[in-house]
Structures are given as C-alpha cells and as structure tokens.
C-alpha cells in the first residue's frame, strides 16, 4: 500500500514538474533570447511615454499631447482568443510582448478586461472572460510586468466590440483589452 502511494506521489510530482517546465519554459526562453531587444525598445518607448505622462498630467488641451496620447493607447493592443478557449495564441503572445514593453516602460496601472462572444451562457462566459484576463495577466507577469500593477475584470459577453452574428464579429469579440488606470 505504502509503496503504491509513494509510487503515485512520485508519478504525480514528475507530472507536475513536467507541467511547470512546460508552462514556464516558453516565456523564460522568450525573455532570455529577447532581453537585449526588449531593453532597446524599452528605452526608445520610455522617452516618448515619459513625455506623454507629464503632458496629460498638466493638461490635455494641446493637440500634440492628444496625438501622443493616442499613440500611447494604441500601443496597448487587445489580444484575441479561440472559441471557448483561454489559451494564448502565437499572435496573442507577440502582441502581449509589445504590451509588456509598454507597461514596464510606462509604469502605469492597468486593468485587463476579459471578453467573450455572445455564443454560450452568460455565466459561463463571465468565468471564461475572467480566465482570459488571468492568462493574459500571468503571461505579462512572466514577461516581467509587476503583478500589482495589473488588475483583471471579466465582462463576459456583455460588452461586444462588434454587434453582428458572423464568425468575424465573434472572433473580434473574443478578446482581452487593456484599460489604463490613472
């Protein structure tokens, strides 16, 4: 009996370690291989971002400040998901890498919103949206964005981006969005 239990435990541990390796390795690899690159970008972006923060802090009347704001916001891009999934796609990972650079440089607090398409039950979609927001958050954390600067919220299927009954509309509605908190 004991032997069996020990065996089970070891198997479980082995599996668990495999899982953690499987989960953590990819982001780590990405980080180490692209550290230099990201730093470069970070510096570049950082200059612009600093400006915009001060501008918005003093006033949003000037048109140049408005423009730079728009650029800044647009640099936090939304990411898409597959139907009934909250696993990040390759595209989503790429987008999130850029978002991570932006976030680290700017040091703002951000809320990650999880959204779903209208198919499926609302309650389930609320949970699904939350899981989407969570995976985005944990991936950003793995990219070095401090966890305490990000909060998550799920809107389920309540706030669709496109109101239509087509596959394209649904694909656009399955997303995680970023909202800066000031």
């Amino acid at each position, binding site marked *: 009996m004991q032997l069996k239990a020990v065996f089970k435990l070891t198997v479980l541990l082995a599996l668990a370690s495999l899982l953690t390796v499987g989960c953590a390795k990819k982001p780590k690899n990405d980080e180490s291989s692209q550290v230099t690159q990201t730093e470069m970008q970070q510096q570049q972006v950082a200059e612009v971002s600093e400006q915009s923060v001060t501008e918005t802090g003093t006033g949003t009347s000037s048109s140049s400040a408005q423009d730079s704001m728009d650029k800044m916001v647009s640099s936090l891009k939304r990411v898409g998901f597959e139907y009934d999934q909250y696993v990040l796609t390759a595209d989503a990972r790429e987008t999130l890498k850029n978002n991570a650079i932006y976030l680290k440089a700017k040091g703002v607090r951000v809320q990650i919103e999880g959204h779903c398409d209208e198919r499926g039950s609302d*309650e389930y979609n609320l*949970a699904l949206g939350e*899981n989407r927001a*969570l995976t985005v958050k944990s991936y950003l954390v793995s990219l070095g964005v401090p966890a305490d600067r990000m909060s998550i*919220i799920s809107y389920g299927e*309540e706030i669709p981006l496109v109101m239509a009954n087509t596959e394209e509309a649904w694909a656009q509605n399955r997303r995680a969005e970023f909202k800066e908190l000031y």
Partner: protein
Amino acid sequence: MNNLLSLLLLVALLLPLPAQAVRIEISAPGEQTIPLALTRFLPMGGSATDSATKVDEVLIADLDLSGLFELADRAAFLSDAEELGLHSTKVDFGQWRLLGVDAVVKGGYHIDGEKLVVEARLYDVVSQRLLTGRRYVGKVGDERRIAHSFADQIMLALTGKMGPFNSRLAYISTRSGHKELYLMEVDGQNSLRLTDHRSIVLDPDFSPLRKEIIYTSYKKSNPDLYRKEIYTGSEARISQRPGLNTGGRYRSDGGELVVTLSKGNNSDIYLLGTDGTIHKRLTTHWGIDVAPSWSPDGDKVAFVSDRRGNPQIFVVDINSLKVERLTFEGKYNATPDWSPTGEWIAFTRRTENQFDIFLIRPDGSGEHRLTFAPGTKEHPRFSPDGRFLVYSLDFKREKSIHVMRIDGTGDRRLSAPGGNDTHPAWSGYWQ
C-alpha cells in the same frame, strides 16, 4: 320426462353464458383538457364598468396558458350565463351540461366609489357543487391582480396545486440604455424598473420568503452581488470579493445562498449566508465552475463545469461534496435550473447553431428537448409550481422573454417588443 328434458336444455343454455362481468381497460382519457365555461362577470348593483372586461381578459389568458382547459364558445351560452348564480342552488347546471362543459366560472363585481368587490365562483357541472368561491375586496384598478388570484384558485381547486399566475417575473432589460433590473406580471404586463445602476445588471433571483431580489451588478466596477428589497428599494452589496460574485441563488427556505466566486483567480461554487459570509466551499477544481442551482430540498446543487473539457452539468452533494456528472450528450450544456417539484432539471444545450432548452431527471434519465423553433433560448427558469418554464429567446437580434409549459407546449412571448429582455427569474408564490 318433459320436465327433465326442459331442465337439461336450461342447463345447456345457461352454461355458455359468462358468469363474470366484462372487463374493460381504458388507458387514456378521451380528452386531456377540461371543458370549462367562463362567463363574463356581471355587475351586482351599481354601475357597469370595464372591470368585468379586465377580469375577463386576464382569466382567459391565464386559463389558456394553463393548458388545463378547453374554453367553451360563448356564442353557445344559454340564459344561465346572464344570471349571477353565486350559489350552487341558483345555477341551472342542466344548461351547462347541455353544452358539454364539466366546470363553469361565474362571478360578479360591485363598485362603491374607489372600492371594488369581486365575487368569483367555480362550479363542478357534473356533480353540481361549488369547487371554489372567493370574495375579493380591493380598489378599482386591482382587477388584474384579482383575476390572476382567482385563476390560481381555479388551478388549486382542480389540481390541488396553486397556479403561478399571481407571482412576478424579474428580468434584465436594456430599455433605459443600460442593462437594468425590471419586474413584471406573469403575463408580461405592468413592467417596472427596479435599478438605476447605469452599468450592467445580471442574473436576478427572488428570495422565496421576502420580497427581495439578489443580482450581480458592475456598479462598483466589479461583478458584485447585490440584494434589493423590492418595495422599499433599499439595496445592499452582500458579496464584493475580487472577481466574479455571480449566479446567486436562494435555497428554497431562503436560509442560504449558493453563488459563484472567483476571488480573482478561478471560479468555484460557494455557500454563503444571506449576509454574504462564506459558509462553505462546494467545489475545488481548476476548471470553470459556474451557474449553481439548488435542489428543492437543499441538499444538492447543480452547476456547470468545464472540468471534462467542455461545459457540462454536474451535481454536487453539499454535505459530502461528492460531484457527479449529469449530462453526457452534447458539447455545450449550461444554465441548469432545478424544478421546485424536484422532478426535472432544465438546461440549455448547444444544438446545430443555436441553444435549445432540454429537461433531464436528476438521476440522469429521461433527457429530452423542449424547444425546436429557430433562435437561441437561454436562462430557463421554472415557475413556483413547476408547471411552466420562462426563458429568453434571441431571435433575429432581438431578445425577448417567453413562457411555455414544461412539455414544450403553449409557448408565448411575454415581454413587449422593442427592448432586449433577458435573464428572467420567477418569484415564489406572491401573497
């Protein structure tokens, strides 16, 4: 000699005659509806007003929805329809029998200033006796409520179980531009907005005891659970944990809530006190666990989980915390609602390209589909007597509330056109 011969003949003749009675088995009634005559209510002195018409309209609609009756054609009514007949000795049952009806509804009303008195009777035509008699005293304008109450009484007299017609429906509508909580009568009339959160309000449920509703709202930028007293309007936030505080459902005795909490991490099912404190955690699983629904005796909770890959209905025993899978067919089963009779669990399943409503017994048997019309049907909820289901239909990008009998018949739209109405919830009996 002759005597003997005749005796023998007699014996011979008598022998083949069957000694026992003929046995006949009738294995279904000839008619599955009760032929009923509904007379117009007559003025008992005083002036004739439109009160009778209002009562009449509501009674016809309710009795029709019940599916219990076949209303006799008024054109065939004889002279007794013009008599008040508030006592069984004053009713000419022969006339009603001639029309082939088994039951007759008679009534009268009296208006004295603002005071309205309605007398209503239901007679059994065959046994010529009073089945139920009611006197309602109210104000002018209470006609609809009175008629709903009497329809419930008719159901009680003929089936032993109250009708649900005098209860209320809560639902979510976007008529104001935001998703807000509304209340209406069971036939869709007299709708009333209850919240002004200007945010997103979701998934209401009635307290079985008090006139209170719980619901989820994004008013404070997080899906929190709120409770509102319907008439005083006072509102309280009872669960505001980070992440989901959704799908709140009262136990049938109103003593505890079951709710989905994610605590900003992963959604699981919890038992809460009515003050919002956590009493017990019912599920512990990395998968999504949402949409709980109590069994009527409060020892089990049905919920949706994707722990086996796609959303399916599971049942958890709240004492042993043992989880059993209920649905195996289909790739997407959601929003279970346990019938107050305990007989069925209603849920939605993704069929071809839409969702439809299905019923399944709590032991997993007897699964069958109720809706076949085009459009997605969601949020099935049972009436307090378990005889009807209310649900929301999404057809041609318009969402509306519908009601049907639990055999899928008698489907009709309740909510008025021009508004996206979803998330219906049926109150308990509304005294």
